[in-house]
């Protein structure tokens, strides 16, 4: 994409580095307490949800509350806890379980595989066409960098389906892009994990997830099998819709830019920051909203500083915004509906040549 050549990259890097150093020096007790508190909430929601699902036979409203509660638990687990912990945001705590190596989340996608594709490719090569496979997930055409095909005509439906099955989409997408399932390897990629390994992980984590949600837990409920089964299904659906919506709002709003491979060759730290900045968009909202998005509503800050504890994005956002303003970089933020509308517009726009 065209870049305004006026940005002083060195200064930008220095300023953003100092924002980061400042927060790093403050990390401590407070952040450790916070993440543990979120985990406690997650446990409470999860178990009250699971119990309420079973009480649905007394009063169906309880089932509904249970679904909401379980969905909340899953969202917290995937976003504020899973995503962030797996980014290494809390590795400095030295905790045996709260770290990017051992955390595994409640989603079909295997943690280690996700960690590899997402943290490495998506975060290093953000929105570089051909390198960042998260851009459109190989299913949607979201910029003119891709040739138009007939199937793009109905890509809005594809998008809806992707949202519904988001956890499976994310999981499958990594393998699909790796050509794990259908021959044809790309040679310029060095493989960090072998294909058979990825395949094994996909099936074992995926199967475990299916068995757990749709067989084991329902069976534990005995005669209330169906209540639990449908409850789990509904909770997973809610979670999928929510996460996919938030993620799309963070990356595929109208103004988000794309880059090509040359852009990132010999890129300086400042240029890297710059690309991260233009590749993401924020969503405005209240604190509770931010927690439920895993602070991915601060997508810009997350992309600039992927391993700072996410709750800290709140306090650095104004500083980042001020720095961007100084350099004349567009800080893409807006309310939820505005951003969402912009995403929808983009998907529809690129449905056509």
């Amino acid at each position, binding site marked *: 994409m065209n870049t305004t050549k006026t940005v002083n990259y060195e200064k930008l890097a220095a300023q953003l580095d100092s924002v980061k150093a400042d927060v790093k020096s403050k990390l*401590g007790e407070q952040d*450790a307490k916070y993440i543990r508190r979120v985990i*406690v909430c997650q446990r409470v929601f999860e178990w009250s949800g699971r119990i309420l699902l079973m009480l649905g036979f007394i009063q169906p409203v309880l089932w509904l509350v249970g679904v909401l509660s379980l969905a909340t638990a899953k969202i917290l687990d995937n976003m504020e806890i899973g995503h962030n912990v797996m980014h290494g945001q809390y*590795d400095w705590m030295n905790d045996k379980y709260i770290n990017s*190596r051992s955390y595994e989340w409640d989603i079909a996608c295997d943690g280690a595989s996700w960690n590899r594709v997402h943290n490495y490719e998506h975060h290093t090569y953000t929105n570089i066409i051909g390198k960042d496979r998260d851009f459109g997930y190989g299913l949607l055409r979201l910029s003119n960098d891709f040739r138009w095909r007939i199937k793009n005509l109905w890509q809005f439906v594809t998008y809806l389906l992707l949202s519904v099955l988001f956890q499976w989409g994310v999981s499958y997408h990594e393998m699909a892009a790796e050509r794990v399932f259908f021959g044809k390897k790309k040679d310029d990629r060095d493989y960090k994990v072998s294909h058979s390994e990825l395949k094994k992980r996909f099936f074992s984590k995926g199967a*475990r997830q299916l068995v757990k949600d749709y067989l084991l837990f329902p069976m534990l409920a005995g005669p209330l099998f169906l209540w639990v089964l449908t409850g789990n299904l509904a909770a997973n659906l809610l979670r999928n819709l929510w996460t996919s919506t938030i993620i799309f709002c963070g990356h595929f709003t109208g103004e988000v830019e794309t880059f090509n491979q040359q852009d990132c060759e010999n890129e300086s730290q400042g240029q890297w920051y710059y690309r991260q900045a233009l590749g993401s968009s924020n969503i405005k909202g209240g604190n509770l909203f931010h927690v439920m998005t895993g602070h991915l509503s601060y997508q810009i800050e997350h992309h600039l500083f992927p391993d700072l504890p996410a709750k800290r994005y709140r306090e650095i956002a104004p500083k980042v915004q001020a720095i961007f303003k100084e350099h004349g970089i567009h800080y893409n933020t807006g309310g939820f509906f505005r951003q969402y509308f912009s995403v929808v517009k983009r998907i529809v726009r690129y449905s056509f040549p």
Partner: protein
Amino acid sequence: MRALLNSLSKHLLHHQSWNGYWEPVVQCFKPGWREGYFRAQVKHVQVFAEQSIELIIEPEKAWPVHQAGQHIALTIQTNGRLLTRVFTIASEPQLARQQRQIRLLIRSQEIGAFTSKLTNLRTGQWLNISEPKGQFVMPNTARSLIMLAGGSGITPFIAMLKSIPADSKQTITLLYYAKPNSHWLKDELEQLKQSLRNFDYHLLERSKDGDATTWLTTNAHKHWLVCGPAALYKQAAALAKQLNTPIDSEHFSAVPAAVVTSDKHELTLTHQGKTFTIDNQQTLLTHLQANKQPVTVGCGMGICHQCQCVKKQGIVRDIRTGELSDSSEQLIQLCISQPVSDVELSA
């Protein structure tokens, strides 16, 4: 039961351990509770003039009482970070059994942040300890004993001496080397001398009294116990071999010598049981790759955490910030870590 819960937890809760899954919840009721550790509560912290800190803690009931001479790993949470160090218990098992108290004596001039954090501990605070470990205990022998201590190596001997019944027939001589004016617990040693019939001790300084060779050779018929820095131990071990004397020992290299300099110098790196000679100029990732070790890499610039690895011990420097790590076990990113001391990585 534990295994069953863990496998349930793996399949239903996507967490490798049942207790680990509940840990943050349990901590709401039992502060400092941590899976795989014992809890202990701080009773008393005191800083002594001889550069030592005395820490008295009360382990939970389930803690298996130590044998005199054994050590524990002490884990404290300071500013959200968990730090672990190994210390020998400097009190007798009787005290632990009767009053549920153990005492640690810790040298306070250690480089690195740990000991300075200890002074901030408050009475009543919870911390974690491991079960007692180590084979350095009173030998099962009727022979007379020579105890050779160097610096903070006095701690196991204090525990042993205090655990002996007053009427013990065994003759024990303690040779205690330390820097001038930094012998610990002189009062307690004097008291022990009064109460134990066959015990005597000598406070020695290397600069004044020379090394332990003469003492040891004249006592070759006794059983030697040695605890102190590696140099002291090596000398004693060599002599023991020569003289065919039974010897038990524990030596520490607890604090790796960290030389913070940009000048090139040699260090060793242990990875998956193999040891390499490396320098302090390049990142650990570069060294491992140069030595053809299997490592996972991604961005090579500290973003993706693919190269992450558990450092068992050693100090590394973050090349982005210049920040030095702690010397104990930690997760590090190989691509941005430069060795500052000898480093050991686990598989």
